[in-house]
């Protein structure tokens, strides 16, 4: 109806409009906040640029061999990242193996079963668990988890599953398994709180429909509710994975710091973050230092990809209409 009027209206001239906006301060406010917002952009781009430039030496010298070589010898100037990548991936996988069933189970309890009061109290505690600094997890892991693993868990694993190469070899207490376990505890709160939110977003009809068809409470939960929230749950798992990959202090304190690849989970190893934390301040020579920076770059890229996947999945669940299942 009003289209003809809108079309026939004379286009406002731009310059006075801008002046008007400048005068009442809106444009100024926009520009100031824009400047601050741009600083985020600047910092991120600067970070990537700095990592790229500072790792030029090993990138040119080793090329892709940096990622595939398992030799890390600062004395002879040989730098290969494979033991660190291996350690990072293995410890994170152990963490997920423990934390995903536990976390999703707890999330199901909190969203489906627990009375609102208990659910909110538990969620509060879980959020506090997420706020504990990683160095404190490290202290606990070092003084309580390491002896526990050395004296009880690993010997019993060796006794029952010792025929597998994963669970054989000498036991130190320090190693992949211990690091993976503390990582599991650290990623648990992230998996629980995001999975719980995804589960809470599932429409009640979904539950009622399953129950009306004669499903038990568990069948309704497992076959109607959890599949509906699966993207959010996967998102939480990836977010937990990204946390585990980049986790530094706790892992550094219990991984054992051995830059080589071992099949046994009891063996000491190394992760990318731990290598940087331990060696960066004592690295002598540009090649050594820059190799550590390149390790940082590898870690950065790894976490970016995982984080992006996590966010895509979480966005996909929150945007999805209730019509789809």
């Amino acid at each position: 109806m009003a289209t003809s009027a809108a079309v026939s209206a004379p286009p406002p001239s731009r310059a006075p409009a801008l002046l008007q906006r400048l005068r009442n301060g809106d444009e100024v406010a926009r520009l100031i906040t824009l400047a601050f917002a741009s600083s985020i952009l600047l910092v991120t781009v600067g970070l990537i640029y700095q990592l790229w430039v500072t790792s030029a030496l090993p990138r040119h010298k080793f090329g892709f061999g940096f990622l595939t070589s398992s030799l890390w010898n600062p004395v002879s100037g040989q730098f290969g990242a494979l033991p660190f990548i291996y350690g990072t991936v293995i410890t994170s996988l152990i963490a997920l193996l423990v934390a995903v069933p536990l976390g999703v189970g707890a999330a199901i309890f909190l969203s489906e079963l627990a009375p609102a009061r208990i659910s909110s109290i538990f969620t509060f505690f879980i959020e506090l668990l997420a706020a504990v600094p990683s160095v404190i997890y490290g202290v606990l892991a070092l003084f309580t988890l390491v002896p526990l693993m050395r004296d009880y868990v690993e010997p019993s694993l060796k006794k029952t599953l010792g025929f597998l190469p994963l669970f054989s070899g000498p036991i130190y207490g320090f190693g992949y398994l211990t690091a993976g376990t503390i990582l599991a505890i650290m990623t648990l709160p992230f998996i629980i709180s995001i999975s719980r939110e995804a589960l809470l977003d599932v429409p009640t009809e979904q539950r009622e429909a399953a129950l009306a068809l004669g499903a038990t409470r568990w069948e309704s939960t497992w076959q109607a509710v959890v599949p509906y929230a699966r993207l959010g749950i996967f998102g939480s798992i990836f977010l937990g994975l990204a946390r585990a990959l980049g986790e530094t202090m706790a892992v550094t304190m219990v991984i054992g710091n051995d830059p080589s690849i071992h099949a046994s989970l009891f063996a000491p190893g190394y992760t990318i973050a731990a290598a940087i934390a331990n060696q960066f301040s004592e690295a002598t020579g540009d090649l050594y230092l820059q190799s550590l920076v390149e390790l940082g770059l590898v870690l950065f890229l790894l976490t970016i990809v995982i984080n992006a996947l996590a966010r895509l999945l979480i966005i996909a669940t929150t945007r999805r209409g209730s019509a789809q299942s």
Partner: protein
Amino acid sequence: MTLRNRWRKTLSYCMLSLTGVCAVVAVSMLFLLLGYLVYNGWRSVDWDFFTKLPKSPGETGGGMANAIVGSVQIILLATIAGLPVGFMAGIYLSEFGGRTFAFLVRYMADLLNGVPSIVIGIFAYAVVVVPMHINSALAGGFALALMLIPITARSTEQFMNSVPQTLREGALALGASKWKAIATVVVPAAYRGIATGMILGVARIAGETAPLLFTSGSSDYMSTGFTQPTASLPVMIYYRATAPWEDWHRQAWAAGMVLLFLVLLANVAARLILSRGIAVQK
């Protein structure tokens, strides 16, 4: 048929109980952790801990006064630099953001948020420590500010977005310009949420260790400025715990207990602020 139904019911009962067990295990982690820290640390948190300087390696006694002061210095720097930037960026994202640029900033903020803290440490080392040729509280503060900015920006944006659109329209209809509406209506309406986000952000960076290892470094002396190696509580805990001396382990427990207590206190306070106000409606 009845057998099958009984099996289904039993399965349902078992699995649901199992989820309860999972939740109890997860929550008990927090109490195990707190219990262990208090059990091992409370005896060592005494007057000396807060007032004395560290003794040299192997000697018993001494405290962490320098680390406490250093932590305060570093966190103060990070807060002064990080909170305003994050806050303003959050306002831009929520109120002024266009489509593409705001999307880009938001994406970059999330990216920066997900960067492992040790990588932030490398960046701060390259940008601040290398030109200055020395570890300093300044470099540590810079590294922590970089972590604080995206956290604050995103939480500020989120809480300002949850202010009802009608409030903005009301202010504009009364003739206020947009920035005035933001400053006098939107921000006050969301201030509890914004404050909560800020406190949580500061609590989060207060416990960070990895970005400080090679930016602020460590020191056994009281720092007297911002341009020299500065001890901090988290880094001190790390070095104390990984050293071979019994007495240092005792101090690591004590410092861990103090740090955790402060961080959890901030978290509880932040949530109290948020839950007491109903200014922000979803």
